[in-house]
């Protein structure tokens, strides 16, 4: 049986649409790492070097606080198995700039990524993104957006969720 894509549950109060998913290859890797390390968590990084990638830690290793947002919770368990919850976190200040995008956690060959647990396997988690149709993309000031607005083909029309 092939591994499915897993979509995270909605964990942000007031929201109804999921924000994060795992590709099948990410699911397989996470299940294998869960067997090796036990319960896991993601925290999305920003900044230099290995930044802008999701970092995988043993659950609770990274202390989250009110300065973090939990974007969703995955359940890695195969159908019928006991729950294997895995939270996906991001700092609140970073989320301010990411909130209009839907994130897909994928895996690529790679080397090294902070203290993230997948690195010794010779692979790395990678975020792929797409715009969420249910989110307002940007509240950009009109002035600084001029170069973009001048391009009629730009798909930036804000679309608010009716839900």
């Amino acid at each position, binding site marked *: 049986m092939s591994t499915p894509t897993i979509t995270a549950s909605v964990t942000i109060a007031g929201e109804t649409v999921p924000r994060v998913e795992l590709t099948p290859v990410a699911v397989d890797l996470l299940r294998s790492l869960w067997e090796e390390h036990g319960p896991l968590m993601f*925290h*999305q*990084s*920003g*900044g*230099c*070097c*290995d*930044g*802008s*990638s999701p*970092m995988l*830690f043993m659950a609770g*290793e*990274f*202390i989250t606080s009110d300065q973090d947002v939990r974007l969703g919770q995955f359940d890695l368990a195969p159908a019928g198995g006991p729950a294997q919850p895995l939270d996906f976190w991001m*700092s609140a*200040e*970073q989320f301010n*700039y*990411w909130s209009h*995008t839907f994130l897909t956690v994928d895996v*690529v*060959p*790679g*080397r*090294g*990524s*902070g*203290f*993230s*647990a997948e*690195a*010794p396997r010779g692979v*790395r988690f*990678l*975020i*792929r*993104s*797409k*715009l969420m149709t249910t989110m307002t*993309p*940007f*509240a*950009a*000031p009109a*002035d*600084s*957006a*001029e*170069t*973009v607005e001048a*391009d009629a083909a*730009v*798909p*930036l029309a804000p679309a608010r969720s009716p839900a």
Partner: protein
Amino acid sequence: MTVYSVPGTPGSKVTFKSRYENWIGGEWVAPVKGQYFEDITPVTGKPFAEVARGTAEDIELALDAAHKAAPAWGKTSPTERAAVLNKIADLIDANTEMLAVAETWDNGKAVRETINADIPLAADHFRYFASAIRAQDGDHAQLDGDTVSYQFHEPLGVVGQIIPWNFPILMAVWKLAPALAAGNAIVLKPAEQTPVSILVLMELIGDILPPGVVNVVNGFGLEAGKPLASSNRIRKIAFTGETTTGRLILQYASANIIPSTVELGGKSPNIFFSDVAQEKDAFYDKAQEGFVLFAFNQGEVCTAPSRALLQKPIYDSFLGDAVTRAKKIIQGNPLDTDTQMGAQASNDQLEKILSYIDIGTKEGAKLALGGERADLGGDLTDGYYVQPTIFEGHNKMRLFQEEIFGPVLAVTSFTDYDDAISIANDTIYGLGAGVWSRNGNVAYRAGRDIQAGRVWVNNYHAYPAGAAFGGYKSSGIGRENNKLALGHYQQTKNLLVSYSENKLGFF
């Protein structure tokens, strides 16, 4: 034009060993668990050496060696330590090409940069801190007629340092030089993407330092970095990298109640006021180059000027000229001295950059240049090359808010001074910035109003020893490259002395 021979081939400046162990206590020590990993050169995408896959056991060995060495090293005089640092600098200078080729092969960057910047700067940073430690005085105060307060600088003891992969040797030296000058013993973990060049440096300078004063353990972050950062046997942890690991490091430091300095990157604005285009003269040419510096080191610089802010009246003309200039960037074999842009440091870095080009397009940014992986053919066809890429958009796009760490520039416009500062500061980071203007008053004010630790005025990407470097906001804590860095590696001892023969009279 010179094309350096591939390491290990006839005529090459450097031949790597097939396998590198850890450098502990002044000698090569095999990893306790006997495991190794391959080091891949980004130039061709092929492995070229095996490197120790260190674990907690190896970190303990390195800490043993460091603790053994620290007391005697900490008691040496500043004069003696300065002499050691100067000897290291001389040896680096005498081997510039060898180290430069090793660095280029490990990291992928163009050899003209390693020869002219990375390696000479590494030597100079050692010299700077050799001078700084000799010039550093303690202080004293006469608190009253019989009471004197003396303040002494003391080394912390054994410190941990975790190094990034973008300037493997230079970033190591930024941390090693002040720590050594201040009299500390060090356990250093290089990045697993670039584990070898620092070992080539240790091979060169190892004999100058007493055994155990500098120890290098390679390995993965989880397996070697975490045991180092969380150890209760270090008195300080220094880190350069990204925000999540930075927070984790600070968390480990809090558990041990030790200081930590962290440098966590940026999204640096490069602001061009209209008057730069007042004349098409040498200054205009310089400003144009300043714009194109986004591609320096393939964009793999924490302070890369990755957001260009152009004032509206010059937006089209300045950008047009700059795109024309960026088109002329020579991408090629990093060992060719004519090459201006080499390879990204790793496959996952390449993939990340391409993922940002993708989201930039989806967010509606307008591509002005590049936007694809570059296939340089021949032996380089599997190397990690990306075209210099320029997007036009606005500051709320993720392209403008996240450190891509690649040759990808996000350009937008601004109306007036206040708009420029507002856009420049609309970021969670505050590491670097550039301001370009012929008006000194405007440039000065902008430099002061931008919330960043380093603002280049009418220049960019200079990293001279002596100029303090470090971040505001989420870009981190601490300053490097300046004598201030000594304070991050020193304890303050206050000796409060009474020269009076008379009792207090309390009891």
